[in-house]
């Protein structure tokens, strides 16, 4: 991640003592800040923790050089990602952007006058799915249960989903990840930066409907993995997957199976799931609250 920072910022961070770096925040005319295991820390020009007033103030040159490095001097190559608000770097790290929105024909065309960048260190948790894997994949067989992971935001749904995809694929099933927001495999130039398994194809940046249809027609999946279902059109997509005899592992915002079933979009969408995993942050992200067999699953 460091090589994408302007040389001055790179030097400051190389002098800093970092404990599990999570974020680097670069804001124009404001002090350089990082977030690590200690929390949010301002850094001085010597890379030492300091009060905000003594922090190294990021200038236009630092920001422009960092932007050049992040975009490979080719803003046009990342239009779609910029419209989504972030870029993915090699290694799966992300750079969020803050600036001024430019709209065209009612939709966000680009961001100009970038004034802040937020580097987020990618962190995958290999083995996150170990406690539930035997519920998802029946022991001694190659059969899996269609699974829905449910939780409020920030509880580790995508981390669990990614590790399930990895484990299922490494157990011999053909998996296709339809990665609408590049959050599951964190592809950079189409190449997954996080481990999603040996037998996994990734459709990066595809809209769910198009991605699922491409997968079903062309890639012969046994399992489709996708993030964040819960929109009107998802019922049709899930029905298409079910008709093809393909299993699905997906995530969804919510706090319980009962409340989820009452949502309007859920009518006709949730029948294909056999297993529901509810997550929370009670004991930190990824706390498994319950694993439910649903819709008459055995």
């Amino acid at each position, binding site marked *: 991640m460091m*090589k994408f920072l*302007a*040389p001055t910022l790179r030097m400051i961070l190389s002098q800093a003592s970092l404990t599990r770096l999570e974020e680097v925040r670069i804001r124009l005319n404001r002090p350089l800040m990082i977030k690590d295991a200690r929390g949010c820390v301002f850094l001085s020009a010597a890379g030492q923790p300091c009060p905000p007033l003594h922090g190294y103030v990021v200038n236009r040159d630092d920001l*422009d*050089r*960092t*932007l*050049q*490095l992040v*975009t*490979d*001097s*080719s*803003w*046009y*190559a990342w*239009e779609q990602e910029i419209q989504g608000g972030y870029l993915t770097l090699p290694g799966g790290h992300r750079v969020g952007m803050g600036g001024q929105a430019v709209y065209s024909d009612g939709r966000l*065309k*680009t961001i100009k006058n970038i004034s802040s960048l937020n580097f987020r260190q990618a962190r995958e948790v290999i083995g996150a799915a170990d406690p539930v894997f035997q519920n998802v994949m029946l022991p001694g067989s190659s059969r899996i249960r269609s699974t829905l992971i449910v939780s409020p935001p920030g509880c580790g749904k995508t981390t669990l989903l990614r590790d399930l995809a990895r484990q299922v694929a490494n157990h011999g099933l053909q998996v296709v990840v339809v990665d609408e927001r590049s959050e599951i495999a964190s592809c950079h130039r189409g190449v997954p930066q996080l481990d999603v398994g040996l037998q996994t194809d990734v459709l990066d940046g595809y809209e769910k409907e198009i991605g699922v249809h491409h997968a079903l027609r062309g890639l012969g999946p046994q399992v489709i993995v996708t993030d964040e279902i819960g929109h009107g059109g998802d019922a049709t997509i899930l029905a298409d997957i079910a008709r093809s005899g393909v299993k699905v592992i997906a995530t969804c915002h919510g706090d319980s199976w009962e409340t989820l079933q009452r949502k309007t979009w859920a009518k006709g969408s949730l029948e294909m799931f056999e297993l529901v995993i509810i997550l929370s942050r009670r004991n930190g992200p990824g706390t498994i609250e319950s694993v439910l067999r649903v819709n008459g699953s055995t």
Partner: protein
Amino acid sequence: MLIAQSFAHQVQNLRQLITFIQVLESEIQFARTTLPDVILAQAKQCSGDVGTFLGILSTTLQAGTGEPLGVIWGKGLETLSANGFPRAVLEDMRTLGDVLGTSDVSEQVKHLRVLLHRLEQALKLAEEQRDKQTRLWKYLGFSAGLLICLLLL
């Protein structure tokens, strides 16, 4: 004769530059290839002054200092300037360097097409001058030969 050769050299350089800009346009428009990748690939394929220009760009971009492309581009143009490129072409190239890579595909393509148009005009002019010089030197050569024959008779 040297003057005629220099015009021929200029024509060759302009043709290479036009080819590079055409490739750049296609790569940006259809493949969204990043500038360092296009420049590196073309630096390997181009020879002569344009090859040297692209080589300088490629090396500086790979260095990872985050220097603005316009500045790197300007340094590369000094090579072309030292090799007798027409001043108008250099100015047009400099203008492109300031905007290259800084906007979306449609705007990049517009900038590249404007430059292509200018380069094609410069090429036409250089070809005309080359032909004129070649004709002049051929005529002078023929006349000198004729004069020598007459003197020998």
